[in-house]
C-alpha cells in the first residue's frame, strides 16, 4: 500500500470565485491509477467530487486530466509513475475548455463542435450486390492508426494554436478528418480537403509536433496533419477560397526554390501578399523599413542562383509531374 496526497481542483459553477485545490490523503496499492485515487476519494472521503471516467482501460478517452501539469488519461496512469518526490499528485481539468464542475469539462464547445465541422463519417458509393461496402485490408491499413483515436482531446489540450485561438479546428478533429479523407470508400475526398483548407483549418496548424507528444496512444496527429497537407497539395488544393494568401505563399516558395535552388525571402513576402494587393503590400512596409534600417532586408528578385539550382529544379518538376 502507498500513501499519496491528492491535490484536486474543486470548482462550483455557482461560486466560481471559490475555485481551489482541495487536499485528500489516500492509501492505495502501488498498482492504483489516478482514476482509482479519485474513485477512492469519492467513495470514502468526499462524494461531492465530480470527475469523468468510463472504460478504465484507455479506450474511451473519458478521463483525460491534467496531472502534475501534464495531460494524461487518468485510468492508464499509475499514481506511482507520476507522484512527485513530495508525495503529492495534483489533478486538474485539461486546459482551454470550460469547466462545468471540479474535473468535468464541457466537451461540446471544446471538441464535438470541431469534430462535427469535419463531417467525421464517410459517404460511401452505393453498396455492392451483397449490400456491403467492401474495402481491402491493405487500403484500410493506412487509416487504421487514426481509427484508434479515443477522442480524449489531449492533443488539443497540448496544441500550441488552440492555446491562443479556440476557433482553430485542432488536431483531434483533423485526425478524424484524416480518417475520412483516406478511407477508400469515401466519395467526398476533394470536397473534404477543400473544406478543411479554409481559415481555422489544416493550414492554421504550426506543425510544431506538440500533438504527437500529447497523444497518449501514439496516433501521432501531427503526422496525420502533414499527410492531409501533402495530399491537398498533390491535388492542387493549396488553400481554401477565403485564404488565398496561403496558396500564394506555397506557390511563391516552390517557384523561388525552382528558380534559384533556395528561398528568396523578399520575393516570398511580396508574392504571399499578392502582387496587386496594394493594401497587403503597404502592410509590409513598416516591417521592411525596420529591416532596411538594420541592413538586413533581403532584396527581392535579386537572388543569385545556387550552383545546383538546375538539378533542384529538375527534381521539383519531376516530383510535380509524378503527382499529376
Amino acid at each position, binding site marked *: 500500500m502507498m500513501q499519496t496526497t491528492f491535490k484536486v481542483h474543486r470548482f462550483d459553477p455557482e461560486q466560481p470565485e471559490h475555485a481551489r485545490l482541495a487536499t485528500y490523503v489516500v492509501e492505495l496499492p502501488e498498482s492504483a491509477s489516478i482514476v482509482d485515487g479519485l474513485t477512492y476519494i469519492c467513495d470514502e472521503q468526499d462524494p461531492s467530487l465530480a470527475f469523468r471516467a468510463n472504460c478504465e482501460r484507455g479506450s474511451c478517452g473519458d478521463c483525460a486530466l491534467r496531472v502534475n501539469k501534464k495531460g494524461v488519461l487518468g485510468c492508464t496512469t499509475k499514481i506511482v509513475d507520476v507522484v512527485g518526490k513530495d508525495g503529492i499528485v495534483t489533478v486538474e481539468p485539461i486546459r482551454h475548455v470550460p469547466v462545468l464542475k471540479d474535473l468535468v469539462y464541457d466537451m461540446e464547445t471544446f471538441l464535438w463542435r470541431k469534430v462535427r465541422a469535419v463531417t467525421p463519417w464517410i459517404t460511401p458509393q452505393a453498396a455492392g450486390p451483397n449490400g456491403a461496402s467492401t474495402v481491402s485490408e491493405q487500403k484500410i491499413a493506412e487509416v487504421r492508426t487514426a481509427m484508434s483515436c479515443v477522442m480524449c482531446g489531449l492533443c488539443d489540450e497540448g496544441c500550441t*494554436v488552440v492555446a491562443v485561438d479556440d476557433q482553430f479546428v485542432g488536431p483531434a478533429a483533423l485526425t478524424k478528418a484524416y480518417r475520412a479523407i483516406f478511407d477508400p470508400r469515401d466519395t467526398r475526398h476533394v470536397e473534404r480537403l477543400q473544406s478543411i483548407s479554409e481559415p481555422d483549418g489544416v493550414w*492554421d496548424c504550426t506543425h510544431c*509536433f506538440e500533438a504527437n507528444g500529447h497523444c497518449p496512444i501514439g496516433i501521432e496527429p501531427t503526422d496525420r496533419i502533414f499527410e492531409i497537407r501533402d495530399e491537398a497539395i498533390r491535388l492542387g488544393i493549396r488553400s481554401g477560397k477565403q485564404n488565398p494568401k496561403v496558396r500564394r505563399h506555397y506557390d511563391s516558395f516552390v517557384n523561388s526554390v525552382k528558380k534559384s535552388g533556395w528561398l528568396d525571402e523578399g520575393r516570398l513576402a511580396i508574392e504571399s501578399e499578392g502582387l496587386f494587393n496594394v493594401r497587403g503590400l503597404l502592410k509590409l512596409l513598416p516591417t521592411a523599413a525596420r529591416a532596411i534600417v538594420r541592413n538586413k532586408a533581403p532584396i527581392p528578385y535579386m537572388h543569385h542562383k545556387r550552383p545546383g539550382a538546375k538539378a533542384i529544379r529538375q527534381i521539383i518538376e519531376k516530383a510535380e509531374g509524378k503527382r499529376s
Partner: protein
Amino acid sequence: MKYAFYPGCVSRGGCPELYPAAVKVAEKLDLELQELTDVGCTGAGVLSRDLSDPINARTFAKAERNGLSTLMTICSTCQGVMMQANHRLQSDTAYRVHINKTYLADEGLEYSGALEVKHLLWVLMEDYGADKLKAKLTRPLSGLKVAPFYGCYLRRPSDLMAPKGFAGRKTYLEDLISLVGAEVVDFGGKSKCCGFPILTANEDNSMRMVSDHTGEAKDKGAHCMVTPCPLCHLNLDGNQPNAEKKAKKPIGLPILHLPQLVGLALGFDEREMELQRHIVPPDAAIRNVKVNMLS
C-alpha cells in the same frame, strides 16, 4: 572535427548576421566546416514532402560524396526537416532506393542512409564538449539574464530529436547559457512554437505567440532571449514591434542567435557578432554583462 556545413537560406537572407557569427565561432573553436554550396532549401516544413524529401536526399548524398559523415546545421527548422527526411530515408530502404533511382541517379548521386544531421548546439554539447568549450571562453557573460527559446524542431518529435541516450538534448540550451556564465531565465514558452509557420495563414495567432513568449520571458526578468532557430528569430525579433502593437503591451526583449551568445563569451565584440542588425536593439542587455576578462 570536420562537418558538412548547411547554413540554410535564412542565415544569409532575413537573418544575415547569423552566418558570419556562426562561421567566426566555428573558426575560433577549430570546427572544420566544409560548406555545401550547391544544395537546395530543405523546404522548411512548407514544401510538401514529395518535393522536399528528394531535395534533402540530394543534400545528404552531396555531403557523403565529399567524404563527410556528419552535416551541421545552424537552424532548428532545417535541422528538424532534414532529420525527419533522413529518418524516412534511413528507416525505409525501398523509399530510399526509389528516391535515389528516380531523383539522384541523373547526377550520378546516391544516398547510402548513413549521414548524421546535427545542429550546432548538439555539436557544441556532444562533440566538442562542455569542458573544452568552457576552456575557450574569455568573457563570461555574468550579469546577463537569458531566456532560452528552443522552437519546435529541435525538441520535437521527441522520440526522433532526443532518443534514448540523448535525453540531455532537452536542456542543452539552458546548459549552454549557464556554461557561458549567464543566468538562465526559465519560462513556460521556451519549447513552444514562435508562431512563424502560421504568419501567412493566421497573423493574429502568430503575433499572439510572439507577444506571449517574449512578454513572459521579459516579465520573468530576462534581459534577452537566445534561440537556435533563425525562423524563430525572424518572428520574435523582426515581428516583435507588430506583436507589441497587437497586444498593446511594450516588450522590447532582444533576441540573440545561439552563435552570437557563444561568440560574445568567446571574446568577440558586439559588432563582430553583428548585433547591430537586430530589430530590437540588444545594447541595453549587453550592458548588463560585467566584462570579466580572464587572464
